[in-house]
């Protein structure tokens, strides 16, 4: 990039301001305490940053969601507490804290109380590998992507605990639906990531981002034929993984009264809610990392790029919620197994093809392949139509 | 290695023995399957420990462990399918109540 040197220096300083701040604190510490304390301090600083970031993100995501949904439904959304309702999340927090904590009589008490605590742990652990900016990954694991997929797959178990521990038929139904849904959508999600791993030749989230640099730092994977298909599949699976509409069958309010958190109230419910929003954030962040170039982008500091992309994706999720009706159970499973799964397999083949031929012919070939396979899949998946029922009018 | 090899082997031996106890003693078929997973896990720990300490090429142990993982997944899938089929027909999941070859 051709920029005046002063501007570039400023950008560089702003870009690395958090990294430099951490380095400065550690430098200061290293004069007074032994080495191993500094190592721990480094871990503690990153950990505290994540522990603060997670809940704050969750609080303001709820506000953003309510505001946006309000606008979509032609109303204002929360605007009474603070200017533009900015203090609304804090008011919600106080409300949650002061609510009565109800445990059902026949509940499996230990498991019932453990579930909301356990569900937050993977949601926070996932933050470790999200690259928030240049050199801003908390732990640069060389299997970062696999770690992300593995840890986020633990989420099913606390949901089971919550649904089984409450001893409620609606909770149990919600738990069953969750199991089916999360297992099914994990398969196309993992497979849609495979082309990215093939092209960047690494599982580390940092290296995946670095391999998407190029002219103007805009050589993102979404600008390739396999990237755009992979991104759409990954994003749909991400929406399903964090149980958001239109895939919110596990907690469908109007069908099974909020599923696995029917029996939870007060702070325990808030913890479930928190885990859900943090999962939504990390999944959008990872989608941005894998396909939208992560923190790569011209001119602006890296972390602004990352947060911007992530929030655009989150807004798309909220938009989905505002516009789409809920799936039916059989439609949901059929969509994952009969449509997304074959499409991801074809996508892997196309990625291999695109690697070996020139870009232009790659686009043409992959367009042909995708349109044919899309058409075939749609034809094969002809929706099951219920038999027409006639109700003769009584005289 | 940070801790001596023998300690890891003893750990995995104890884990294996616990799993074996579960297999011998449990009446519920799902309980037996769970204990079998425990035993497979103990075997995996051994494979990893050996791959880290003996002179074979270092990835061998890990590859064997991955094979064991795959086999464990198939065991669980087929075993649980059998349990569900059994429960549908006999309404029981206890081993000693299933004593007919055909029904």
């Amino acid at each position, binding site marked *: 990039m051709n920029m005046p040197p002063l501007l570039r220096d400023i950008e560089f300083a702003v870009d690395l301001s958090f990294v430099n701040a951490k380095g400065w604190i550690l430098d200061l510490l290293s004069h007074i305490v032994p*080495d191993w304390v500094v190592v721990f301090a480094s871990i503690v600083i990153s950990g505290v940053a994540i522990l603060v970031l997670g809940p704050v993100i969750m609080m303001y995501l709820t506000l953003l969601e309510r505001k946006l949904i309000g606008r979509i439904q032609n109303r204002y959304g929360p605007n009474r507490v603070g200017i533009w309702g900015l203090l609304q999340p804090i008011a919600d927090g106080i409300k949650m804290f002061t609510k009565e904590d109800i445990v059902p009589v026949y509940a499996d008490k230990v498991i019932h109380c453990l579930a909301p605590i356990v569900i937050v742990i993977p949601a926070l652990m996932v933050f470790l590998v999200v690259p928030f900016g240049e050199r801003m990954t908390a732990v640069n694991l*060389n299997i970062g992507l*696999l770690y992300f997929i*593995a*840890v986020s*797959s*633990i989420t*099913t*178990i606390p949901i*089971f*605990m919550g649904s*089984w521990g409450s001893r409620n038929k609606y909770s149990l139904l919600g738990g*069953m639906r969750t*199991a089916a849904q999360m*297992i099914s959508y*994990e398969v196309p999600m993992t497979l849609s990531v495979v082309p990215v791993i093939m092209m960047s*030749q690494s599982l580390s989230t940092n290296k995946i981002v670095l391999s998407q640099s190029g002219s103007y730092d805009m050589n993102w994977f979404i600008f390739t034929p396999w990237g755009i298909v992979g991104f759409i599949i990954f994003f749909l699976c991400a929406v399903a993984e964090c149980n958001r509409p239109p895939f919110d069958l596990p907690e469908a309010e109007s069908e099974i009264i909020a599923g696995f958190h029917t029996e939870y109230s007060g702070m325990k419910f808030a913890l479930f809610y928190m885990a859900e929003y943090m999962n939504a954030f990390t999944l959008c962040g990872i989608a941005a990392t894998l396909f939208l170039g992560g923190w790569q982008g011209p001119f602006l500091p890296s972390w602004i790029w990352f947060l911007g992309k992530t929030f655009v994706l989150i807004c798309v999720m909220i938009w989905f919620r505002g516009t789409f009706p809920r799936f039916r159970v059989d439609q949901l499973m059929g969509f994952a197994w009969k449509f997304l799964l074959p499409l991801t397999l074809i996508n892997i083949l196309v990625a291999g093809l695109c690697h070996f031929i020139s870009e232009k012919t790659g686009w043409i070939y992959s367009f042909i392949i995708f349109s044919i396979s899309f058409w075939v899949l749609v034809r094969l998946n002809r929706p099951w139509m219920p038999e027409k029922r006639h109700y003769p009018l009584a005289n | *290695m*940070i*801790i001596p090899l*023998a300690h890891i082997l*003893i*750990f995995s*031996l104890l*884990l294996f*023995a*616990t*799993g*074996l*106890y579960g297999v*011998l*003693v449990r*009446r*519920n078929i*799902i*309980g037996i399957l*769970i*204990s079998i*997973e*425990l035993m497979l*896990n103990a075997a995996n*720990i051994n494979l990893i*420990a050996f791959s*880290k*300490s*003996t*002179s074979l090429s270092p*990835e*061998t142990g*890990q*590859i064997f462990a*991955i*094979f064991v993982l*795959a086999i*464990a*997944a*198939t065991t669980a899938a*087929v075993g*649980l399918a059998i349990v569900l089929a059994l429960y549908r027909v006999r309404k029981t*999941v206890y081993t000693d109540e299933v004593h007919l070859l055909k029904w």
Partner: protein
Amino acid sequence: MDMLSLIIKFGIYGTMALALIAAIAVVTLRNLFHSALCLAAVLIATAMIYAAFHADFLAAAQILLYVGAVMTLIIFAIMLTEQLGSKTIRQTNRQNLAALAGLLVFVVILGRVIFKTPWPVTEKALASKVTVMELGKAFMGPYVFPFEVISIILIAALLGAVVIAKKDR
């Protein structure tokens, strides 16, 4: 840095102790759902031990496959076959004392063998760290035949499971 390795060492021993306690809970708890959750704890602890031995790919695979998939299957089966009266049904058979005695002999003999054997520990293997790329190359190179066989077994088992669990029409 000496302190750091000491802490890691104690961490590994602590994880092992935790895994053993959870494993004993797996086989002794009456409630199957609880013992399945304890199994999840054992599996996660084992994954941590793998990570301590630099087998991080295997640790992630363990969590993904076992905790994410197999545990979900097991809990699903427990939920489907759970009976309300199961609290009063005996969960163990009458062999538990005999089994305990036999296992004690087994553990003592194998333990003696483990402590008496001079395990060949080579420095080269200790220093080695297997990367994911090496693992992949090994899978596609010398181990390609077992790899294919495993994938056939997986497909066969999947189909078999579907056929067995399907309702008869």
